[in-house]
């Protein structure tokens, strides 16, 4: 079960998770107050 299905299940979850994370990262980079944390 683990051997044959685990990588597929991981990929299915990652499909949604990374697409969501992409928008979160992009939103944070566009967010002025967030980016101000890294500049003096």
């Amino acid at each position, binding site marked *: 079960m683990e051997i044959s299905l685990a*990588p597929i299940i991981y*990929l299915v979850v990652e499909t949604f998770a990374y697409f969501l994370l992409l928008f979160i990262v992009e939103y944070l980079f566009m967010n002025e107050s967030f980016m101000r944390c890294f500049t003096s």
Partner: protein
Amino acid sequence: MPVGSDAAAFASTVSSQLSARYGSLISTIADTTATTVGGFDNTTLFSKKLQMPKLKGGIYFYNTTIPSGGNTVYKYNTLVNTRSPTSYFFLPTLAAETIINNLGSNIKIEVTNYPLPRTYQQLQINNTISGFFASFIFSLALAFKFASIMAFIVKEREDRSKHQQIVSGMKLSAYWTANFVYDYILYLIVAVISVALCSALGISSFTSGNAYAGVWLLFIFYGLAYISFTYILAFAFKDHGNAQAGFYFLTFIVGGMLPILTFLLRILGSGSNPIGRGLAWFLRIYPAFSFGEGLMNIGSVSLYGTA
């Protein structure tokens, strides 16, 4: 044999007998210089093999017999060229025939070779090797596809063309979705050809039973997961050339090499097995690893079953 005191005469007799019996089907070389089987192997046979690449092997007859009860045991050694699959039974048969005929008979031993099909275990080992190589090669090949995606994304940011599109009113969701759809369609062409090749080339470990559906799912979701992941990692690079080379290398290591490492850890022994399993759970966060490991597992599922 008994070869007798005149080994040269014996060798000549055997040679002419075999020539008379088999004609041009076989060619024999009689040699009486070696006095031990080791010497026969190292000097006589070795030099002959260098001259004759298709040499089947050699038969070393002993000049003594061993009494065993009321019988006499004749001793010989066959030194087989292992690249010839028929030599294993051909040479001992020829030796036995020679001994019997030299005792006054005139017989010809015929051998029929009809090998049994490969056993289940042998087939599983073949499947595992196919899965092993297929996983490595697919990971290697698809790494180029994702590296090219990475290069375009970084280049668009580098050239400020992404910025220009955003200030012109384009929504970020539209930018990423359009890129995603375009890249995925291009990826699908490669994926479909890859799976079709598995079918066409008869990689049975990937195309038989449930494995075929599993391979399709891996290819479909690998693209979906890894394209998004590529977009996220693109933020880490500033130069598209470096991004392409670096990302290719990363995909190759994590997707091609690490699945082999975890596979070996799993099968090496009970001590390394939990390390391999634990490492796999962690590394599957990286889609290329999931893909490589999934293909390798499908190919070798029967080998390590519940390992």
